[in-house]
C-alpha cells in the first residue's frame, strides 16, 4: 500500500473535503501562505484561494466563536488552534455555544465545525505547549472527540469530522506529524464512534488511542516474546466511545489496562475504567489498571519529559500488574 506522512494524510483530507464541498473553509494562524505551523495546510491557499483559507490573527476566542456563527450560516469551518494548550482561550465558544446549540435551540440548529487541536509531548515544548486535555471535551455533551492513531485514520476520521453535522474536536499528536504509515488511494470513510482491535491478543486488553497506540504495539511485541498476548483496542473516538468493542474484548481477556498520554487523575481513562467496572464487572478477573502521565504539568527538559511521557516500559509494568 502507498505510504504517507500523517501531516500529508491530514492535508489530503482537507483538500479532498474542500474540493468536494465549497462550504468547507479553513481558519487558523499561519494556515495560509505559510502552509500551517506543522505543514498540515500546505498548498491549500493556492488551490482554494484566500476567501476559503484564512490566515487569522492571534484571536482564538473570536476565531472559534466565528466558526460557530459561520457553521450556523451555511459554512463548514475547520479551525486550527496551533497547540491544544491554547484552546483554553476558546472554551466559551466550544462549550457554551457550539456544543449546546442544537440541544438549546430545540434541535433546529446544527453546528458542523471542526476544531483541530495538536496535543502531546516528547518534543521538549514545555508546560504550555504539550498538554493532552481531551478529557475536558469528552465531558461536554454535544461535542464529539476524535483522535486518530494511524495515517489512514488521520485521513478517514478528518473527513468524517468535516462531514459530521455536529461540532467535532479533532486531536492530532504532534509527535506523529512526520511519521509514515500506509494510506490507501481510496480510504473507506466511516462515521465517528467505532473502535478497532488494532492487535488481537487473548491475555490482556489494552484500551488506548492516538500516539499511544504505537507505543502499545511496542510493549505488546516485547510481552509477546514472553508469551503474553495483549489485545490492543484503538478507541479512535473518545466521545462517543465504542463501549461494545471494549466490553467484547474484556469478555475475551478478562483483564483491562487503559493507556494514554494525558495525566491519569480525572483523565479519559477513568471513564473507560469506570464503565467496565460497571457494565463489565462480571468479566473482570483482576483490578483495572491505568497507565498514563503522572499528575504534573508537562516538563521541558528531555530528562524530565522522558520520565513524564508514558511509554512501553510503563505499559509493560501496568500489564504485569493485572496479571499478578
Amino acid at each position, binding site marked *: 500500500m502507498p505510504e504517507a506522512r500523517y501531516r500529508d494524510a491530514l492535508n489530503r483530507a482537507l483538500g479532498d473535503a474542500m474540493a468536494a464541498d465549497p*462550504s468547507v*473553509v479553513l481558519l487558523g494562524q499561519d494556515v495560509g501562505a505559510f502552509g500551517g505551523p506543522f505543514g498540515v495546510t500546505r498548498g491549500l491557499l493556492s488551490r482554494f484561494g484566500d*476567501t*476559503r483559507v*484564512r490566515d*487569522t*490573527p492571534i*484571536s482564538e*476566542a*473570536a*476565531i*472559534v*466563536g*466565528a*466558526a*460557530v*456563527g*459561520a*457553521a*450556523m*450560516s*451555511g*459554512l463548514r*469551518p475547520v479551525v486550527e488552534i496551533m497547540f491544544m494548550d491554547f484552546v483554553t482561550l476558546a472554551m*466559551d*465558544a466550544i462549550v*457554551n*455555544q457550539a456544543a449546546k*446549540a*442544537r*440541544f*438549546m*435551540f*430545540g*434541535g*433546529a*440548529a*446544527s453546528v458542523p465545525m471542526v476544531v483541530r487541536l495538536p496535543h502531546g509531548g516528547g518534543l521538549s515544548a514545555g508546560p504550555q505547549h504539550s498538554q493532552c486535555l481531551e478529557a475536558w471535551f469528552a465531558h461536554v*455533551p*454535544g461535542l*464529539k472527540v476524535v483522535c486518530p492513531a494511524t495515517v489512514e485514520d488521520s485521513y478517514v476520521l478528518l473527513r*468524517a469530522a468535516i*462531514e*459530521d*453535522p*455536529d461540532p467535532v474536536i479533532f486531536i492530532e499528536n504532534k509527535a506523529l506529524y512526520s511519521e509514515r504509515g500506509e494510506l490507501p488511494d481510496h480510504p473507506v*470513510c*466511516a*462515521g*465517528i*464512534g*467505532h473502535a478497532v482491535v488494532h492487535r488481537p491478543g487473548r491475555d490482556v486488553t489494552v484500551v488506548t488511542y492516538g500516539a499511544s497506540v504505537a507505543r502499545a504495539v511496542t510493549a505488546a511485541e516485547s510481552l509477546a516474546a514472553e508469551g503474553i498476548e495483549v489485545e490492543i483496542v484503538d478507541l479512535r473516538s473518545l466521545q462517543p466511545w465504542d463501549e461494545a468493542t471494549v466490553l467484547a474484548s474484556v469478555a475475551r481477556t478478562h483483564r483491562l489496562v487503559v493507556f494514554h498520554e494525558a495525566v491519569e487523575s480525572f483523565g479519559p481513562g477513568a471513564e473507560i475504567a469506570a464503565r467496565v467496572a460497571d457494565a463489565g464487572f462480571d468479566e473482570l478477573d483482576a483490578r483495572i489498571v491505568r497507565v498514563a502521565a503522572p499528575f504534573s504539568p508537562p516538563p521541558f527538559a528531555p530528562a524530565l519529559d522522558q520520565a513524564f511521557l508514558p511509554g512501553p516500559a510503563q505499559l509493560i509494568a501496568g500489564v504485569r500488574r493485572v496479571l499478578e
Partner: protein
Amino acid sequence: MNRGQKRVESRPADASPAAADMLGLYERMYTIRTSELRLANLFADGAAPGFLHLSVGQEAVPVGVSAALEACDTVASNHRGHGHVIARGLELDRFFLEIMGKAQGYCRGRGGSMHIADMSVGMLGANGIVGGGVPIALGSALAHQVRGNGAIAVAYFGDGALAEGALHESLNLAALWKLPLLLVCENNGWSEFSPTSAQFAAHVVDLAGAFGIGARSLDGNDVVAVAEAARSFAGELRAGQGPRLLECVTRRIRGHFEGDAQKYRPDLAAASLDTDDPLSRLSARLLGSGVQAAAIEAIERRVAAAVEAAVEAARCGEAPTFAAALADVYSPVPTHA
C-alpha cells in the same frame, strides 16, 4: 424582503407613506412592550421560570435596526433579547411557549428567555454569555462574505459587554476582513447592578474608530433615527465597505432581571417611562404628523389581543419530555456510518 416594512402592509389607507412606516414601527415596538409587561406578570405569578431580562424602554433599538434588515440577514442577540427576536419577526406563540417552558416553544423548553432562536429566519439566538453573540455574528458575516449572498449580520450587545475581550477581537477581525457586520451597542448605562461608567474607560465610538470602523452614537429611544442610521449603515455594509457600529443610547427602566428591586439605583427617578418612553415619543410624533389617535388605538388593541392569544396558547402548551431533549444533544447519525 424588509421585515420592518412587512408589517406596514396592514397600514390604514388614510396615512401618508412615512406615517405608515412609523405606524409599522409603532406596532412592532408596542408588541415588544406588551409582551414584556405580560411576561412580568407571568413571572410574578410563577408561570415564567428562570431569569427574565426585560427591555422595557429600549424597544426602539431593535425595531429601528430591524427596519434595515432583509430576510437573508442574520442576527445574534444577548441575554436581553426579547425585543431583538420579536423585532426580527419571530412568532409570539412560540416565544411565549418557550419562556413558559413548553414543548412547542422555540427551543422546545430547553433554552428559555435567554436562548430564543429561529435559524429559519436568521435569528442565531439570544445568548447567556455576555459578549458571546458578537463572534457568532462575526462568523455569520464571514459566511455571508464567503457565500457572496449580499446579506449582513447584526450583533446586539450591551454597554457592559464592551469589557469582554472577544468583542475587541471581533472588532479587529471585522475591520481586517471588511465583513458585513453591523455592531449595535445598546448603551443603557448599566451592567447588572453597577453603572457601566465604572466598568469601561473608553467610548465605544472611539474604540471603533481606532479600528477604522465607521461608527455613530445616537438617541436610541428615537426609533426613526435608529431606523435611518441602520438603513444607511446597512447600505454601506451591503456595498462591501466593511463593518459599522451603532451606539444606541437608551435607558434600562426595569431591574436587571425581574425580581430586582433596584435599590442600588440613584437614577431611578430620572430613568422612567414618564420622562423618556420611545413609544410615547413615537405616538406623539404620529399624532403630530396627522395620524388619528384611533389608528394608533386600533394597533394597540390588535397587539394586545395577539399577545393575550399567545399567552393563552402558551398556557395550553405541553410540558416537554426529557427523552426528546436527550435525543437532540447530537444530530441523527450520518447515513454512511
